[in-house]
């Protein structure tokens, strides 16, 4: 499964749930597949999607918050797992698209092949689910409806050469429409 397919499978199950998408190709895939005001696209500040998601989850306990993260991104902010695992937001779904590389910068390897992110998640008090295929991912999405967070979904992604279009919305507009979406 390539990342865009996985992003599409998850976004099809979302209505107005809030999504924080990490910088790089993850935000671009989400933008291309399903652009909505309830998506917060990061265009910089690598590593911080999960932290922004935590802040949102704590302040919006009645809404489900999705973080679309990458392996390179979470490895840059592993401390975030500790803070999330300590505060245990019930409504946080932390999705990690793991392709074992920094694809946006030319495919350089990350160390997610050497240290298991799912085990890091488990030890940090997450309920962890792993998917290698679209079929598995769909089953997990059904299963987590009744699971109390924090939830981690680690999705194994294949390398691919497809690149989604760039986000053409101004950062301040991304923010303004997202803030409106939170209130709805």
């Amino acid at each position, binding site marked *: 499964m390539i990342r865009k397919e996985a992003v599409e499978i998850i976004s099809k199950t979302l209505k107005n749930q809030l999504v924080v998408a990490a910088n790089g190709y993850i935000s671009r895939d989400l933008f291309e597949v399903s652009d909505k005001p309830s998506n917060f696209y990061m265009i910089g500040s690598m590593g911080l999607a999960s*932290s*922004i998601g935590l802040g949102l989850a704590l*302040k919006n306990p009645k809404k489900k918050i999705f973080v679309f993260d990458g392996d390179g991104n979470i490895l840059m902010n592993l401390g975030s797992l500790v803070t999330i695992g300590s505060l245990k937001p019930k409504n946080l779904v932390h999705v990690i698209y793991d392709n074992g590389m920094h694809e946006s910068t030319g495919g350089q390897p990350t160390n997610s092949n050497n240290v298991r992110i799912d085990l890091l998640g488990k030890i940090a008090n997450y309920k962890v689910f792993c998917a290698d295929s679209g079929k598995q991912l769909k089953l997990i999405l059904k299963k987590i409806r009744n699971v109390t967070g924090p939830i981690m979904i680690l999705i194994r992604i294949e390398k691919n050469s497809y690149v989604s279009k760039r986000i053409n919305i101004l950062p301040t507009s991304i923010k303004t429409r997202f803030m409106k979406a939170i209130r709805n």
Partner: protein
Amino acid sequence: MKESVQRKIFNYLLGKGIENFIGVPDSTLKYFVDQGLKKKRVIIATKEEEAIGIAVGMSLSKSPSLVFMQNAGFANSLSTIASLVQLYRIPMIFLISWRGYLKNDAPEHIKIGKIQSELLKSLNLKSKILNEQNWTKECLWALNKFKDNECCALIIRRDFLD
């Protein structure tokens, strides 16, 4: 800055509507942070950039946030302040301690302490230095910036050696 003033500053900001205090502890700010811990309003992050990220999520939810840190952590956070907080225009107050303000502070603080004012200027992050006389006025200045959807910094000098 003495203990009672630090505690008053915390209470003042809380009373004026700042709901979340997120950061990495620092000895110069310890009574401020302690007051927040007592009031159960503090989240301790693993590093300053993480604290800023959490505060962004809260500010997007219209819950006003302050991020506290030592100036070493401020130096760590330059890129996050520029490419997240300022780029998206997210209102937030930074409370930054100024290690290396005294020329004979510990050696690891001298360089950052020396360039701190220039770093703030280069970022175009507006700031005021708090002291025991002016703190109400300068906190009010920061709260007004916040209302105008801007981020800004309040600085507390390290005025003692230990």
